[in-house]
């Protein structure tokens, strides 16, 4: 049997309301202070809620994406010659402008082509899984995944109309009294390389999994079956037992039924280990960056693992019996093992799990 090549993350970059650059994300999540405030970018006068996590100074989506790709490539040492033989995968909200946005990003950054994912809140993580699969299949030695969402009036109005936004200006994942999510800016890019050609490894991408709930157009399966199967697939690819997982950066958006479904998924996939593994959702700090959320959270997870400290689950008010998990409260906790899961779920019952390890 031919051994399958390893995949490593070699360049990571992210921007959110916590700041610009990967180190700002790490500092922000370890400080544990949520970045939410009143929305200044556009008028929210007719909305139920007035809160989001936005950067005060931000460029257009195209410029921010280009800057993120350059920063990640620079960090990985991915020069023009290597980019010309690499894959580019992009995760953004769909629309008539998207094919041109994607094409311009690829051309400007020197990639031969681009695959664009509009799979809602698992867009970026689906792209990461596919990038790893392309490398492992031998299509390419390297791939860059970029993702972006900047809080804007249309999606904000839709989430407000759908009564999905938290009414108390705080995101409280897995907590009693949670009232919903809040949106946040997120721009991120990561470089993935086949391990034998990677020169600057940041983390190992050990496993990934994608699975559907087959349950409802926009509600999660209460039993979390799709997410559970995604976690199981990631563990299987990594060749790891549930006990090896030392941290879960959860999808948890602060939404009542969605967080409970995720807790059920973790119990199913991890068994007794689900009650012991430290869990937090950093969406309580940087907000929900929709199509980009999974990449921002992957960057945060990788950096926290390398640093050896796990970020808090901000906004905690008290336990919810439907979410019997070891939620990290009050202060960052030391990393128990060198392996972490980053989970994401989306409308359509789409779920992904990414399993990373400190190199």
């Amino acid at each position, binding site marked *: 049997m031919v051994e399958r090549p390893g995949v490593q993350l070699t360049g990571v970059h992210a921007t959110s309301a916590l700041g610009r650059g990967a180190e700002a994300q790490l500092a922000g999540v370890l400080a544990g202070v949520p970045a939410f405030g009143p929305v200044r970018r556009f008028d929210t006068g*007719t909305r139920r809620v007035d809160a989001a996590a936005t950067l005060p100074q931000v460029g257009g989506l195209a410029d921010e994406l280009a800057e993120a790709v350059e920063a990640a490539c620079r960090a990985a040492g991915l020069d023009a010659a290597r980019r010309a033989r690499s894959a580019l995968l992009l995760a953004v909200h769909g629309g008539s402008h998207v094919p041109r946005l994607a094409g311009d990003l690829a051309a400007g950054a020197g990639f031969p082509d681009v695959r*664009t994912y509009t799979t809602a809140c698992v867009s970026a993580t689906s792209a990461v899984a596919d990038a790893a699969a392309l490398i492992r*299949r031998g299509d390419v030695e390297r791939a860059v995944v970029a993702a972006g969402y900047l809080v804007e009036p249309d999606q904000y109005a839709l989430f407000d*109309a*759908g009564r999905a936004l938290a009414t108390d200006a705080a995101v409280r994942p897995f907590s009693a009294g949670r009232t919903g999510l809040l949106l946040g800016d997120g721009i991120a890019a990561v470089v993935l390389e086949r391990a034998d050609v990677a020169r600057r490894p940041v983390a190992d991408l050990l496993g990934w999994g994608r699975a559907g709930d*087959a349950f409802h157009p926009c509600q999660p399966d209460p039993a979390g*079956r799709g997410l559970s199967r995604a976690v199981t697939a990631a563990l299987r690819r990594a060749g790891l037992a549930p006990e090896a997982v030392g941290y879960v950066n959860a999808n948890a958006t602060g939404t009542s039924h969605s967080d409970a479904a995720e807790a059920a998924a973790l119990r199913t996939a991890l068994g007794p280990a689900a009650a012991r593994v430290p869990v937090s959702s950093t969406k309580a700090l940087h907000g929900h960056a929709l199509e980009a959320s999974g990449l921002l959270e992957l960057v945060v997870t990788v950096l926290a693992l390398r640093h050896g400290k796990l970020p808090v689950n901000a906004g905690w008010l008290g336990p919810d019996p439907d979410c019997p998990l070891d939620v990290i409260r009050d202060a960052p906790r030391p990393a128990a093992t060198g392996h972490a899961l980053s989970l994401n779920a989306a409308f*359509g019952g789409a779920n992904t799990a990414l399993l990373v390890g400190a190199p």
Partner: protein
Amino acid sequence: MSAGTPRPTPVVRAEAAWPEPGDGPPTPLPGFVHSAFNPLVAAVADRCLTRAYGRAPAPDGERVAVVLVSPTGDEASAARVRATVAEGGRPGPLFFFQSVPNSVAGHVAARWGLGGPVVCLAPAGDPRAAGLAEADLLLHDGDADAALLVLIERAPDDGGADSAVAVLLGGGDA
């Protein structure tokens, strides 16, 4: 991107289009409003899966992926929301639920019991090639044994309606 080692090509288990001869507009889809995009996806997917399985649910559905390919997504709904917001209004809540193509993909997955990955793509180039490449990758990578590929073609600029093709792909022989 160059191919790695030679590998089996996925086989077409069923295929359908909308419209086919005799078709009018797709039937409205409960829970979805305003746009023909979502009814079109549901109609062409239903036709393809009915040809493959006879009726729902698909007996091997747990490892069937749904891959929805549309370069621009549901433009009619997005335009309606944009206009409503620009006027300071509140979009109807159903527009929230159909604001991403995942929702109708999830409708198809729930109706037919398809528990594989759900992936929506917006290619800059040939939609069919992009969709086939994604289905091929998912099958090769092992998170699915089959993939329902739905391709949405935009209406020509001189009028008419959008059209769609659905293809159920399974792992092929070497």
